């Protein structure tokens, strides 16, 4: 487990003015949300959403989401397809901005700073909060160029060879890729491609890694490797993963949020968090009957 020995990545992203150590303290400065329970209370809160509501074309898809994401933990969002778990994940790095009809209300705090306040550059946000997608989406370029792309466009003054090697090592791809760095990334297998996408995200030295069903297009062996990787990366990064695979959530995550679709007063189907707990407890002693139904496989 993370015992506080936070390894600093080779080149830590330049600290934002207000992103120092103090605001992240989960102590008295921030009011307890009441949702996060158990041991997680003791660790730092890296990200927090407050009453986040997401609408598409004015129709709410998620409403009043309040959740804390803890440092060096793996937080899993589980729930049936279409419940809005990916939409929630995309609030954390403002990827919903790319959908013209999507509108996010409420606040998403990153080290206490609201990512949605005016003047925040979504490009800057995504530099600190990396993302891995459901389907491996390497660029049709060489393996090297895939990893180097992030630091290059961010104009990071780094030794590129070093960054590529570190990122590929962190993603457990170095041994397989070191002799073919100039080869097209599309020649890799699906599992390797996904690890390359993880390496690509790590190359910009993010703080948080968002993973949107990263294994759903992979076979069990490749899935196992990615899961091992996630557990290893937890030492340095804060990971949020969306999964529809409950076994995966139990295998890798520390915290689990169960999201489901409810009908609101206007008969709109909107997603809400039913329960957010330590993974072990959520699966063994769910507090809410809806969670119990889902995790025992009676619905979904």
């Amino acid at each position: 487990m993370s015992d506080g020995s936070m390894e600093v990545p080779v080149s830590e992203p330049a600290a934002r003015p207000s992103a120092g150590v103090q605001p992240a303290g989960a102590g008295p400065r921030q009011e307890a949300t009441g949702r996060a329970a158990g041991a997680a209370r003791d660790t730092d809160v890296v990200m927090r959403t407050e009453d986040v509501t997401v609408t598409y074309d004015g129709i709410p898809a998620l409403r009043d989401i309040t959740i804390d994401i803890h440092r060096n933990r793996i937080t899993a969002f589980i729930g049936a397809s279409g419940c809005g778990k990916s939409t929630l994940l995309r609030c954390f790095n403002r990827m919903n901005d790319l959908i013209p009809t999507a509108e996010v209300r409420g606040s998403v705090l990153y080290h206490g700073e609201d990512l949605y306040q005016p003047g925040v550059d979504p490009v800057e946000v995504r530099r600190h909060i990396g993302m891995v997608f459901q389907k491996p989406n390497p660029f049709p370029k060489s393996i090297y160029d895939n990893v180097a792309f992030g630091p290059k466009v961010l104009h990071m003054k780094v030794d590129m060879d070093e960054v590529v090697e570190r990122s590929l090592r962190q993603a457990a791809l170095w041994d397989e890729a070191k002799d073919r760095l100039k080869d097209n990334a599309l020649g890799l297998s699906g599992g390797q491609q996904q690890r390359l996408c993880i390496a690509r995200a790590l190359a910009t030295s993010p703080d948080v890694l968002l993973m949107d069903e990263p294994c759903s297009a992979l076979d069990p062996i490749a899935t196992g490797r990615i899961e091992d990787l996630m557990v290893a990366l937890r030492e340095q990064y804060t990971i949020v993963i969306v999964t529809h695979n409950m076994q995966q959530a139990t295998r890798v995550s520390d915290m689990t949020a169960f999201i489901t679709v409810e009908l609101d007063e206007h008969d709109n189907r909107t997603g809400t968090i039913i329960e957010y707990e330590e993974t072990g407890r959520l699966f063994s002693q769910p507090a809410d009957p809806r969670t119990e139904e889902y995790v025992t496989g009676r619905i979904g």
Partner: protein
Amino acid sequence: MDRWRIRGGARQAVEAAGAETTLTVQGSRSRSEGWKSLAFIALLLFSVLIGLALLVTLIIDALVEGSSRLNLDLLTNFPSGVPERAGLQSAIFGTLWVIGGMIVTMLPVGTGAAIYLEEFANPDRWYNRLLEVNIQNLAAVPSIVFGILGLGLIVRGPLSLGSVAYAGSLTLTLMVLPTVILASREAIRSVPPSLRQGSMALGATRWQTIWHHVLPNAIPGIATGTILAVSRAIGETAPLLLVGATVFVTFNPDGPLSEGYTTLPVQIFNWVQRPQDEFRVLAAAGIIVLLVVLLAMNSFAIWLRNRYQRPM
């Protein structure tokens, strides 16, 4: 069931096992399906052959008629009133200048418009919809109309460039722009959204994403649009006659702004009009030269496209 058996001509199989009966029936049905697909393929082949036959006829006809004049003199001589001494040199250079100027103007403008419409324009806005309808309609405007526009806008009027080669380039640019924009938009749209998302998620700006990922992957489609545009423009005569391509130029244009130029189709048009038979032979030889120039330019575009074509 009975109907099928009778139709299938399988009366003797009536008493046989069901599976066998079914097979017989299906056999006769697939036979008629087989005829249908054969007829379909024949129809498709026929359509291809019509186009091909016309092209081959044109080439053979031009080759037979013009072969006696297909020699180096045709390429190196300048126009002349004496058919034996007339050549195409100024027309070839004129065509290269006019089409070259058109390509370098049309590519940034056409690609830029396509990027705007695909990546930035909100299709719900009325002015963007208006733009779109306009571009589609412009593709159907006769080329002579663009010639009139070029004369009033570029040669005289606001731009007043005079009858220079680049005025011809600009006029042809206006004419082919809709084609280029439509083809480029198609190419940009076919770049998978997952690439854009992957790039944006790494903190790339919209512009960096377009420059590093969208455009390189759209180059093959943009090249195809360019081929279509060049093929159409290189054979245009009418708009160029209006904006000042002269029919009798005995010197090469020395740049895009040189006054007095002619192009291959304009020269061919001039020769066809002459009463002497020798000029008709010249015109046929000119058509062959025009086809070769067109083929060379398109081969270059195809080479470029293949170079950039990557597995997606």
